[in-house]
């Protein structure tokens, strides 16, 4: 069959290419923020199981989260064609539009996570805050830390799911149009968040706790990826065709084939490394080789999370409901 199209737009023909690395970074950093909010909330809400010194490791994490989110939002702002018109997001609420939910949700997440970040700073450690006004605000918010942690836990779950729903709502793009995608992105968000906490934490007990959390998250992520591909393969022809770039090494789809390969190596390897850490007996101080393995597994999870979003954002734009026009 030979097809000639007169009047095709380059933006959509031969396939869609509207979103690039800026959207990939937005989704990745949004997911990372979601993971950090959830993991720090878990650390700060574990009553009795973590002492004050342990919790102190999770002081910088919630302080960092809103800034990572702001960087992510800066990248999506760069992608928007009419940058001065963004105020229209906040003059309406469209309940069926994931982007409208995102606009309002992320708009609320920044101040809430900033408040949470300040609330977790205990008075004896408030020297890390530079300005007096921040120190006073932190002291005033400290009694509400648990309530803010619960709110930010929910906010983290919302952001993690949102980054997937944003793509899965498009019936026109069979690769994205799956209810597994938001759960996969949420899982990946939590996993990358846990990985960054492992990297940032100083105390052995905290590193080990989040290593154990991450083991389950990586395991779930591998299962979700397999289920996603299985679901698409056994679905309609457009959905089956949409996953084919991930299993091809032709010049056209080489990057997607490499992405699959990297994900297939990074996540299981990170899982194995973390399983070893989880099983070994550790003292108060970790040996350099253990720290190296922990760091490597955390970096692998972070890189894998980025590759996952990169591959899905680009490959989704190759997919369409029909192979003609």
């Amino acid at each position, binding site marked *: *069959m*030979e*097809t*000639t*199209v*007169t*009047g*095709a*737009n*380059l*933006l*959509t*023909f031969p396939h*869609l290419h*509207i*979103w690039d690395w800026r959207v990939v970074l937005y989704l990745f950093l949004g997911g990372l923020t979601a993971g950090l909010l959830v993991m720090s909330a878990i650390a700060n809400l574990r009553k009795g199981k973590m002492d004050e010194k342990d919790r102190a490791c999770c002081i910088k994490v919630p302080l960092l989260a809103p800034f990572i989110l702001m960087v992510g939002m800066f990248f999506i702002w760069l*992608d*928007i*064609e*009419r940058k001065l*018109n*963004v105020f*229209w*997001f906040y*003059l*309406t609420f*469209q309940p*069926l*539009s*994931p*982007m*409208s939910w*995102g*606009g309002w949700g992320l708009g609320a997440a920044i101040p809430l996570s900033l408040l949470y970040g300040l609330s977790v700073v205990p008075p004896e450690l408030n020297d890390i805050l530079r300005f007096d006004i921040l120190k006073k605000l932190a002291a005033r918010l400290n009694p509400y830390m648990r309530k803010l942690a619960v709110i930010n836990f929910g906010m983290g779950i919302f952001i993690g799911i949102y980054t997937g729903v944003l793509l899965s*709502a*498009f*019936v*026109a*793009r069979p690769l994205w149009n799956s209810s597994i995608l938001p759960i996969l992105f949420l899982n990946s968000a939590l996993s990358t968040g846990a990985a960054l906490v492992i990297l940032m934490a100083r105390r052995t007990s905290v590193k080990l706790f989040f290593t154990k959390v991450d083991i389950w998250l990586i395991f779930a992520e591998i299962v979700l990826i397999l289920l996603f591909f299985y679901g698409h393969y056994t679905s*309609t022809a457009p959905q089956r065709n949409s996953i084919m770039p991930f299993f091809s090494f032709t010049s056209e789809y080489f990057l997607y084939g490499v992405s699959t390969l990297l994900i297939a190596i990074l996540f299981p390897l990170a899982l194995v490394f973390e399983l070893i850490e989880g099983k070994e007996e550790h003292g108060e101080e970790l040996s350099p080789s253990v720290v190296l393995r922990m760091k490597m597994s955390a970096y692998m999870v972070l890189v894998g999370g980025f590759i996952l979003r990169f591959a899905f954002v680009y490959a989704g*734009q190759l997919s*369409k*409901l*029909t192979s*003609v*026009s």
Partner: protein
Amino acid sequence: MPRYAMVIDQRRCVACMACVVACKRENDVPAEYYRTRVVETVEGTFPKLRMELRSELCNHCDNPPCVYNCPTAASHKRKDGTVQVDRKKCVGCKACVAACPYDARYMHPEKGYADKCTFCTHRLLEGKEPACVATCIGKSRIFGDLDDPQSDVSKLLRQHDASVLLVEAGTHPRVYYIKKLSKAE
């Protein structure tokens, strides 16, 4: 209030591309961008060949994913059944472009808003047909009100087995295609 629809009688299309040119001229569509297109598909092996000519444009769907995905309500469904873009509200997020299963939208290269076929609303207000319909030499494009039983579109849809594009998308398009000679008896 009318319910506008378009019927494309593929049997009468000669792929002259007059609709593509008329649309660009009427709506001042930027160079290298289009609101309507003509798809020519050739199947088979010579000499047993079969060619299909199909004009495509925004389907002004009754269940429009572009409208649902728009975060600012810039893309909206009007009471006359047409899907329009309020340019001042458009932020250029491109969600509607991704949402359209018919790839009927583009981003205006200079002004940054999403753009597409409007069924030439400005002409409808003057009592004229859309530019592509008025210029179609084979009378392949027929436009009218679905609620008027005497309109050409209503008559054609009664007489023929018309189909829509990508029915599986569930968008309920308002652009109908006629391929066969008449309704099966």
